[in-house]
């Protein structure tokens, strides 16, 4: 059913008017013409239906839930949440887009699999729903995670807009500010400084100088790769050829640094450290420094689970000879292809509202990770959140993308397996990177990409 065929009820008109008011009030920097265009769109799709969002039960979920409640109260539009553990998100998302009509109006897509939905046309390009849609420049696109270029088969800034970011997860470097202050130390900017500081504090089992993630640790390891001037895979935009960076000497150096920091300054069970284990170690006051997901920050401020409340500092992830890098691990929200126009418009109405500055400020204060640069800047002096919001804002220029290909899950599986094989001494660092490079090269060749031969 098209939008124009539906009669506008009084209730729907009021909903549209309320949504328009919210948009006007929350976008002070937007020009009058843009406001009129957006209001026109909102009026046109005032027949807003109840939407259902597939959302993961992650640590930032309470913030998202609060944001949804605020949306419902502000606009009168109804939203249902289908809260699912992380492990079931991909399957539920896939099932939703395979039927004749999706049960969900919005899918929350992880950075490691969103490309399967973009490339397959399983989510709707935003401009197909609203040709006048303009993304506020303050919304961070996380190295074009929102876009897909069909000709390149890759996310590029020139690609079409397919998804809108909802969770700005990037990596941060966390450290014990109180201990650093006692020793007169500043936050490290290089891995060498990290090691030097780790030596100062390392006194196991009561205190570990540093720790890293080794279960599913490819995400953090890729920051090491970038800091040594390489990456797992990269696209040469000029030639259109793909390159596997793990065969570079920088990759071996990155792995050696990763191994040395983990083995020498990490806990004895470094082979089995996931995010939860690192978080527990820091929250229990037994860790001086850790490189992990920025979303961990609110956990350190929770007096029920943390003994380091008010003692933490955060900064940009340190770097190496190739500079500094923080990998994005964000979530984007996509609107399934198999929805009616009304449902698509209703879903987009929510996302547009959720990305406004006021909504994002509320979202951040409710415990989630915002996706707007102006919100990070506004909160950088906040007495409660400022200690890590400032670091999030400062990290924006260093954001690097993970491999964003349909084959990404295969690629990261190889990185995880080979790095841990090096960690448990099954392979030398040279062997681990060489084997990983061969496997990833084969994955790309089998996927039909033009790939430069390995050196």
């Amino acid at each position: 059913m098209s939008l124009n065929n539906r009669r506008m009820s009084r209730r729907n008109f009021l909903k549209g008017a309320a949504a328009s008011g919210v948009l006007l009030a929350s976008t002070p920097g937007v020009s009058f013409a843009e406001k009129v265009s957006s209001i026109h769109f909102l009026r046109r799709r005032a027949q807003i239906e109840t939407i259902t969002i597939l959302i993961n039960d992650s640590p930032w979920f309470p913030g998202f839930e609060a944001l949804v409640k605020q949306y419902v109260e502000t606009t009168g539009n109804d939203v249902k949440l289908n809260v699912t553990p992380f492990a079931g998100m991909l399957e539920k998302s896939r099932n939703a887009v395979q039927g004749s009509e999706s049960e969900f109006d919005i899918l929350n897509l992880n950075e490691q699999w969103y490309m399967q939905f973009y490339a397959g046309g399983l989510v709707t390009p935003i401009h197909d729903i609203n040709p006048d849609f303009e993304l506020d420049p303050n919304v961070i696109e996380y190295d074009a995670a929102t876009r897909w270029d069909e000709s390149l088969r890759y996310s590029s800034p020139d690609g079409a807009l397919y998804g809108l970011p909802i969770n700005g997860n990037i990596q941060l470097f966390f450290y014990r500010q109180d201990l650093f202050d006692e020793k007169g130390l500043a936050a490290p900017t290089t891995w060498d400084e990290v090691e030097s500081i780790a030596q100062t504090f390392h006194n196991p089992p009561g205190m570990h100088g540093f720790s890293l993630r080794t279960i599913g640790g490819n995400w953090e390891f890729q920051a090491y790769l970038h800091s040594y001037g390489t990456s797992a895979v990269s696209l040469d935009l000029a030639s259109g050829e793909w390159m596997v960076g793990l065969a570079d000497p920088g990759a071996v150096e990155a792995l050696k640094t990763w191994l040395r920091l983990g083995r020498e300054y990490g806990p004895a069970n470094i082979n089995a450290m996931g995010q939860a284990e690192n978080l527990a170690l820091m929250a229990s006051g037994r860790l001086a420094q850790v490189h992990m997901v920025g979303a961990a920050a609110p956990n350190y401020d929770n007096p029920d689970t943390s003994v380091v409340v008010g003692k933490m500092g955060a900064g940009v992830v340190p770097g190496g000879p190739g500079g500094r890098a923080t990998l994005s691990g964000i979530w984007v929200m996509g609107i399934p292809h198999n929805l009616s126009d009304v449902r698509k418009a209703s879903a987009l109405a929510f996302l547009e509202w959720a990305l406004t500055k006021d909504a994002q400020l509320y979202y951040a204060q409710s415990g989630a990770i915002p996706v707007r640069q102006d919100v990070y800047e506004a909160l950088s002096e906040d007495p409660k959140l400022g200690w890590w919001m400032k670091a999030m804002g400062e990290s924006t220029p260093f954001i690097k993308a993970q491999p964003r290909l349909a084959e990404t899950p295969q690629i990261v599986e190889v990185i995880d397996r080979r790095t841990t094989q090096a960690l448990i001494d099954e392979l030398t660092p040279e062997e681990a990177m060489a084997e990983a490079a061969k496997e990833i090269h084969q994955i790309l060749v089998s996927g039909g990409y033009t790939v430069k031969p390995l050196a």
Partner: protein
Amino acid sequence: MATTALRRSGTGQRRLGTFLDQNFKYWALLPTLLFMAVLTLYPVGQLLRLSLSDAQFIKGKLVWSYVGLDHFTTLSHDPVVPDALRNTLVFVAASVIIEGVLGLLLAVLVSRVRRFAWFYRSVFMIPLLIPPIAISAMWRLMYDYNYGIINQILIELGATRPPLWTADPDLALASVVIVDVWHWTSFLFLIMLAGVESLPHELGEAARVDGASEIQVYRRIFLPLLRPTIIVALMLRTILAFKVFDQIFLLTGGGPGTSSEVISLYVYKVFFVQGRMGYGALLALITALIMSVFVVAYQWLNSYVNKTR
């Protein structure tokens, strides 16, 4: 003419009726066969077809493309599959043997208990009633190197370097086997207890009167009589152990490295995480084939034992 035609028609109906009556046993099986064909053969056929194809979602539609034996080439280069197969076989052998021996011993002991027998039966059944996800979560906490109760106890007892359990590549699979034994021994205990309690105890009494020791009674009389029960119990447990997933997924995720990777977990990763449906289907088929070999071997053993009794 009309009368002849009617007669012919009547004869035809009688023949058809006789044919149906004589072969009724086969017709009666037809609904079941059709049901099986729809629920079993069709999905297996689709899996077979998928294993020779690539399936991708393009523009919202599932597009199958025939790739012939390409996935077999992928299989021959896949470095994870040999590790996963080896770990699966080690896991199956270790868990089934330990659980079989413990299950039988417990069954014999409980069958001899007269007071509070109901209590022991209930207690030994508890692990079977707990959802595997809860068991894995519980053991993951217990195995934790820093906070787990097992290492806390070992440190109290004087251990200076307690085991790393799931973090140690040499101990990771063994750690999962321990959890599996804790969980599934009660399953074998229940089956074997039913077998032990149905034994003709007068044979044992007669042997004892003739001077047989207790060990001889169990070894020479009861154990041969229990063989069919043991074989069926071990066959069921082997099939279940081959499909182990939840415990490995939650306790080790297949690591460190590939030290505890098993075939079911790898099929899950390939099929659902990596979205390689064709290759995943091939791995699933291979798993099913290997399990079929086990089932056939057990069936042969069972019929052999029955013949030699």
